[in-house]
């Protein structure tokens, strides 16, 4: 007897609008100054009315189109009603039966070895307003709980996947790919620490009986997943727990209502939450304060045309266009849109994709990590790096010299850097590859004459002896091509 894991994810993504979904308040993350980014509308004061933020709708459409959804020509707003202190109107403006986008998919790679991919279905993606944040007294002294409504009314898009995911790793992969996509199309920063990407997972097992029957176990919704690792660990835990529960109780999905459990990251377990789900009747109804939204073909096309190349396609293109390994292409894409742009500018400028990939994934990336920088604030602009690599490509300097130049560039003031910087550093340091064979041959001659023992060693078969001599020649003639030096030395000694 075995089982299949069935997972569907509900992801809430905060859209990066300047203002909230239905009022003009700032959406800035500002937990240190609670309730300063509020107004009568998002405070839910009597008599205040919501007004749709068109930019949020626009970003919602972009999101929907990027995950291959249909954007219906008519969509409306509904009130989801429940009582909670972080929800001042006692209803959340959301979308119920006519979401703004539906029936899409997102492709993920499920096996890095075979490069096998899978299309994960997306049921819907709709817009809604976020709630505020409660903070409770944890001292146990029974002080009042507090509510911060700065976040209240921030635009969210909720993306609901089909239960197409079959393992915790697939779930993580889906989330990672989704995050990458949404940051590429610039709709969200997807910052999980600040809560701009939050995930709930619906998990159950399909138990395969020996008689060929399949029995679904009760569905559990895991809440409070705020890291990729958390999603993976929580699902793994839940799969194990459900398998054990099944063996013990034999309860199926039809015997028990959907259960909500919270992920306790510190203890690494899921815990039962109060059975809110079974009692909840949100009494959805169309919000009479907001007119439905209509979307024309022209608007859909306009938003579609604004979408950049999606990361999955770009990853494939980098592999074929620049002959990169799958690994390098993935590393570059995973760093985000600006980094991928940087790479392509360098690659185009120096005419060697592989070389550009080596440099940006190693030297540039190391530098960024050490200094905690984003590529956008990296002082060596792509045209400068391209100019440097072009010198290597044209054998005007050695790779080793290029690293020296690179260090020089990093140590320079950004304002001093320009296209000519590379050349002037090469000249200052005398790193230009020496093509004057006369000077080189003279140096080789001198070194061979000075090192009788090494020559004898070489002649008796010790190839390693050449190495020491190469160094000596290079010291004499800066910028000499070590390959050429080696050839000349061997010629002379043989």
């Amino acid at each position, binding site marked *: 007897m075995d089982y299949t894991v069935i997972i569907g994810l509900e992801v809430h993504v905060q859209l990066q609008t300047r203002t909230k979904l239905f009022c003009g308040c700032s959406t800035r993350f500002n937990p240190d100054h609670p309730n300063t980014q509020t107004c009568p509308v998002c405070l839910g*004061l009597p*008599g205040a009315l919501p007004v749709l933020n068109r930019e949020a709708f626009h970003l919602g459409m972009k999101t929907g189109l990027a995950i291959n959804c249909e954007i219906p020509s008519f969509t409306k707003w509904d*009130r989801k009603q429940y*009582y909670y*202190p972080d929800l001042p109107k006692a209803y959340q403006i959301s979308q119920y039966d006519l979401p703004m986008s539906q029936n899409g998919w997102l492709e993920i790679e499920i096996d890095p070895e075979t490069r096998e991919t899978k299309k994960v279905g997306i049921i819907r993606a709709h817009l809604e307003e976020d709630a505020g944040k409660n903070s409770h007294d944890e001292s146990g002294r029974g002080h009042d709980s507090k509510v911060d409504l700065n976040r209240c009314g921030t635009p969210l898009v909720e993306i609901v996947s089909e239960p197409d995911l079959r393992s915790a790793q697939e779930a993580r992969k889906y989330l990672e790919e989704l995050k990458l996509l949404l940051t590429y199309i610039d709709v969200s920063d997807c910052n999980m620490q600040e809560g701009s990407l939050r995930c709930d997972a619906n998990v159950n097992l399909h138990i395969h009986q020996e008689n060929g029957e399949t029995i679904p176990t009760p569905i559990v919704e895991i809440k409070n997943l705020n890291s990729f690792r958390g999603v993976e660990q929580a699902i793994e835990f839940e799969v194990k727990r459900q398998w054990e529960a099944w063996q013990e109780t034999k309860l199926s999905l039809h015997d028990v209502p959907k259960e909500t459990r919270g992920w306790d990251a510190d203890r690494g377990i899921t815990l039962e939450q109060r059975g809110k789900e079974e009692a909840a009747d949100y*009494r959805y109804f169309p919000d*009479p304060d907001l007119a439905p939204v209509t979307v024309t073909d022209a608007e859909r096309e306009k938003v579609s045309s604004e979408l950049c190349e999606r990361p999955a396609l770009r990853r494939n293109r980098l592999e074929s266009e620049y002959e990169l390994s799958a690994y390098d292409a993935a590393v570059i894409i995973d760093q985000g849109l600006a980094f991928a742009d940087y790479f392509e500018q360098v690659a185009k400028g120096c005419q060697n994709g592989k070389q550009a990939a080596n440099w940006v994934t190693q030297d540039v990336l190391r530098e960024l990590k050490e200094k905690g920088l984003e590529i956008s604030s990296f002082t060596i602009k792509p045209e400068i790096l391209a100019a440097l690599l072009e010198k290597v490509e044209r054998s005007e300097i050695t790779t080793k010299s290029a690293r020296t130049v690179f260090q020089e560039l990093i140590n320079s003031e950004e304002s001093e850097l320009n296209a000519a910087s590379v050349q002037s550093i090469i000249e200052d340091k005398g790193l230009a590859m020496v093509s004057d064979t006369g000077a080189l041959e003279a140096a080789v001659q001198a070194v061979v004459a000075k090192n009788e023992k090494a020559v004898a060693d070489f002649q008796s078969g010790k190839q390693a002896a050449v190495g020491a001599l190469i160094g000596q020649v290079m010291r004499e003639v800066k910028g000499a091509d070590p390959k050429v030096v080696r050839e000349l030395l061997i010629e002379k000694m043989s």
Partner: protein
Amino acid sequence: MSNTSATASELLAKMNSGEVSSEEITAACLEEIARRDNSINAFLSLQAETALETAREVDRKRKAGEPLGKLAGIPVALKDNICAKGATTTCASKMLEAFTPPYDAHIVEQLRAADAVLIGKTNLDEFAMGSSTENSAFKTTANPWNTKCAAGGSSGGSAAAVAAGFAPLSLGSDTGGSIRQPASFCGVVGLKPTYGRVSRYGLVAFASSLDQIGPFARDVTDAALLLETIAGKDQRDTTSLDADVPSYTKNLEQPLENLKVGYIEHLHAEGLHEDVKAATQQALEVYKSLGAELIPVELPHAKYCVATYYIIAPSEASSNLARYDGVHYGYRAKQFDNMIDMYAASRGEAFGDEVKRRIMLGTYALSSGYYDAYYLKALKVRRLIRNDFEQAFQKVDIIASPVTPTPAFEIGELVDDPLAMYLADIFTTSANLSGIPGVSVPAGMSQNKLPIGLQLLAPPLEEERLLRAARMFERETDWHRQRPE
């Protein structure tokens, strides 16, 4: 006419000629309130000091020849469900007894810009739910014509204030007749505009798809003047209509040519009071004498109006009033065990019976399993009612009918019979359900010396037609000049 019984237009003329100042008018209104509001109970709060300050400032501007707004120096009363900075907005509920909004409603901004003098906040049925102000948590407004009788509701305080000489103009809100019915009971003009004609921003919501703010006045001209001051698109209310606001006063005196007046032959004929029936009949005769054509119209779904209304309005109310939970503002119970208990105790203690009744009706109608049978069906019937009017207005320009089946009833007479109270909304709810404008104009007196109103309805955004038709009638009659003793 004295300063407390004159119309706003008359007072504006007197102020412009220097005969009287705004300060004098405002003071006269405040004196009248001090003298008689203890028996009428029209006001929940007065802003006497700021009113006099504003009046003096307007007087100064007028003297200095500075530009003045349309209502410069005219005292205006506001129903206490309209937010105005610095004044409590209680909705006549214990729940909001101490609530002072930090912002002005759109129409309050308009009134301030028009240099009106905001004099006080008037009584209403709690959260505008009722037809008599008996559901106010604080007081019951008496009818200035007979203090044993109800002023009507829910905007009873605003209607009574204008009738009693406390303010020449006031504002109310109309969700199912809450302006037209008290106007009829108190013998003043009351107009419910087209849904969306006036911004709802700052009107505490009862039923969002039905609520409209509208004017009370002593004659049609004043109603036109006040409407043109407050009407128009407001970016903060997406349901407000983006249509030009004509000057309603400009062509008011021009009678409508070839006017076709529709009337309803077979509606609620049994329950209709003889005096109301007679007044309506006489009003139709007046139109006939002015050369109008009287044409019977069919509104086949009108009989479902009250039922439809009492599903849609409570459903929306149950949602709109959910925010009063004792967490962020408003009343909070002193004793509770936990959060859920705090919600229940706060709401249980601070809401009155009628509000609770409607919250329960609405919560039920929106519950899963009942939504389709009640709310969704009501929305469908609403569409049919709207279609009825569209069809009727193909044939006629306006529709005339009674406002209420009876003149003002006695205070206490219907409190134990909510259903009878609901059924009296038979003539008024259709205008809210179909979004069309309607007006009540004084059109008679019952044998017991109580005013009777005539309701006129027009197609959406045809307020100009509605007011001109009302003015045609008013010119031929004397009812609007009568004042209670």
